[in-house]
């Protein structure tokens, strides 16, 4: 058994990231002078519903947003980051805050997302990690794995980008004078109200709350979607990362997948079409097995690189970082030969 396999490394990174994001207080004691850190100013004049306002104000340690679910519902006393980037995207529009306040956050996001794109999902996101762990527990308990049916799968991309657009559309509606005054303000909560993270993360601080309100039509709609999404997330126990296929954060990063600087490459002549990569993929990507074009950096790929790890053809799949190969496929169990020293 090799210890430093790619899977193990990724698992380690995920665990560390999980603790850093969810239990920061264990690692970082308070007392840090947060006034000295960037991005801490709190916008004041905000149109937002009462229960949505943060209890303590934004005074947490790093106080910015990550491209993945560094959720604001991670218990306040534990949390390192302000919220997830989707929340920011909403907020900055809704708050009508001056550009100098949100532009640094946006740049930070673009920088981080452009380099790694969905590798954030595969390596860092704590919600994705929980999802993966649930699936792993099922495996250990010996329950049968289920595959998302083809019939549903074909609509996933449309739904994913559709929902992403829906979220941004609603955020815009908050500030446009369209005369829906009664509920307009509530539109801003669409992101968090529908997000499963809101229920899942508090669990890790020992709090359980099913916070769904049905008191007005907007809340009603959001709560219905939210419950549906929560169920999708819970099905992680049987399906591999079901929520990640429609998650708006993931969808946003998906858009950058084809252009990011951490990417995969495939030498198609070396591929034997054995289908191992397709079977091993946690996101059920079928394109990785194909031999045409740049079909392997598609939006649905979370860059876990399991396909690269398990491909039995040497050099067939490669991971490139700024054009440099940092990892490549190889037949793992092959006994090392003395060839390299004697050849040529």
């Amino acid at each position, binding site marked *: 058994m090799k210890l430093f396999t790619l899977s193990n490394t990724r698992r380690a990174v995920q665990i560390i990231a999980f603790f850093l994001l969810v239990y920061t207080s264990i690692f970082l004691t308070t007392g840090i002078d947060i006034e000295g850190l960037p991005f801490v100013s709190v916008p004041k004049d905000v149109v937002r519903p009462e229960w949505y306002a943060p209890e303590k104000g934004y005074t947490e340690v790093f106080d910015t947003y990550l491209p993945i679910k560094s959720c604001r519902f991670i218990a306040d006393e534990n949390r390192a980051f302000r919220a997830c980037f989707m929340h920011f995207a909403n907020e900055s529009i809704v708050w009508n805050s001056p550009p100098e306040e949100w532009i640094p956050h946006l740049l930070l996001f673009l920088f981080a997302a452009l380099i790694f794109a969905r590798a954030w999902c595969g390596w860092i996101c704590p919600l994705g990690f929980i999802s993966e762990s649930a699936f792993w527990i099922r495996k250990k308990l010996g329950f049968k794995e289920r595959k998302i049916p083809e019939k549903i799968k074909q609509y996933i991309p449309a739904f994913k980008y559709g929902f992403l657009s829906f979220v941004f559309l609603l955020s815009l509606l908050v500030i446009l004078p369209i005369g829906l005054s009664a509920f307009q303000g509530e539109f801003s909560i669409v992101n968090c109200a529908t997000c499963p993270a809101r229920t899942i993360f508090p669990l890790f601080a020992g709090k359980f709350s099913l916070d769904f309100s049905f008191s007005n039509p907007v809340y009603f709609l959001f709560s219905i979607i939210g419950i549906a999404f929560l169920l999708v997330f819970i099905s992680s126990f049987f399906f591999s990362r079901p929520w990640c296929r429609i998650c708006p954060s993931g969808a946003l990063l998906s858009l950058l997948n084809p252009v990011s600087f951490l990417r995969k490459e495939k030498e198609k002549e070396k591929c*034997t079409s054995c289908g191992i990569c397709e*079977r091993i993929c946690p996101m059920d990507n079928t394109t990785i097995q194909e031999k045409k074009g740049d079909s392997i950096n598609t939006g649905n790929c979370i860059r876990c690189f399991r396909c690269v790890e398990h491909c039995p053809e040497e050099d067939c799949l490669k991971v490139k970082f700024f054009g440099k190969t940092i990892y490549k496929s190889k037949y793992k169990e*092959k006994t090392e030969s*003395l*060839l390299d020293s004697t050849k*040529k």
Partner: protein
Amino acid sequence: MQVLNNVKRALLGDVTQEKENPILERRYEEEPYSEPGKTEEFRKKILNASMQNLKSMQSKKNRPKAMAYFDKIVTGSREEEIKKSGKKVLGYFCSFIPEEILYAADVIPIRLCAGSFDTMDVAEGILPRDVCPMVKSSFGFKVLGLPLMELCEIAVVPTSCDAKKKMGYYLADYMPVWMLHLPHKKDSDKSVKLWLEEMYDFKDAVEKFAGKKISKKALEDSTKLLRKRTDAFRRFLELRKAKLIPISEKDFLLVVYVSFFDDAERWTKNVSLLCDEIEKNIERGIGVHSKDTIRLLLTGSATIWPNFKILDIIEKAGMAIAVDQSCVGTWHLYEPVEVEEYSLPGLMQAIAERYLSPSICPCFTVNDDRFDNLTELIKAYEVDGVIYHILRLCQLFDMEAETVKKILEKENIPMLKVVTDYSKEDVGQLSTRIEAFKEMILIREEGEK
């Protein structure tokens, strides 16, 4: 119970789906024709052919000593062993049948594709003259009651090429035959689904045949065991890349041929020993051919023990085969079964895909993977030329030759297409062509310098 079933049947029609019997049934049966009297005579003939091959192979200098094991197995010691073991034996054709399932049920698998010239004649009485020599040869083994065909209680034939399909039909007169439905397009999800279903049926049939349930544990163990076999085999292939060719193609094919019927665990051990020796030889600069020998790649139809005619000729012409691309050589054990989840469905899926998706058999409509692999092998093994070997009447390989030729022209690698069968009639003519091919390569190399 019976009453209930009857009521159900009356109400709903026949809904109790009986498992289909896998045995191929002919309505136009014929009296099997056999020649038991000749068994001994032919047994000697075949042994002779093997001995002759071995003698010429053993006389080559620097032949690895670990080959002795394979020499011993191929000259008959395995037959007694199988008989003594008392286990069930199942024979199969082509390289699509998952040995994992057979090992899990404690059944001994034997690949029956044969390369004996001697047994062809007798098959010609039953099959037409103009079919693939491999099919005729294999059929002859049954008619004559020869080992190892005789040990098999059942023959499993995939619907790969036309000759194999029809051979299955006629073989059904002689012994129980299972036809496995191999899809004609391998790169489609539907095909994989069909093949997976076929694998489940195969598993059920094997269970019934062996009188033993295949547990998840047993399948896991056998998969891991055969994975080790592939590991060792991959190492062997890797060693063949050495500049000084460390093992002749004949020896290589013999090693693979022995895996057709040998015990997997013992075979793996001995291949590892062979690899160790080869590794040492490479280190000390010992090879079986001199350094500037022309390196060739052999692709196309199967060259099965003891029909090493084409290899003989190439060897006599002073060229070496660095690697082959054939379902009885490099590709028989090449692909690993990579299991994502050690559950029964997980194992079955991995096994089914391993035998279908990466196959390079020309019986598939689109076989571009074979061409990809060919250019890869050319680069990896630094070959100077390609021998495209076609067993006479194999249309599939013949038709693909055109594409291969064009691809190789682009790669600037010369190719010689050889159409032949098991008989020795055309040896002279082939030698001349292969000599000429060698001259051409030499002239090209001169030109390049």
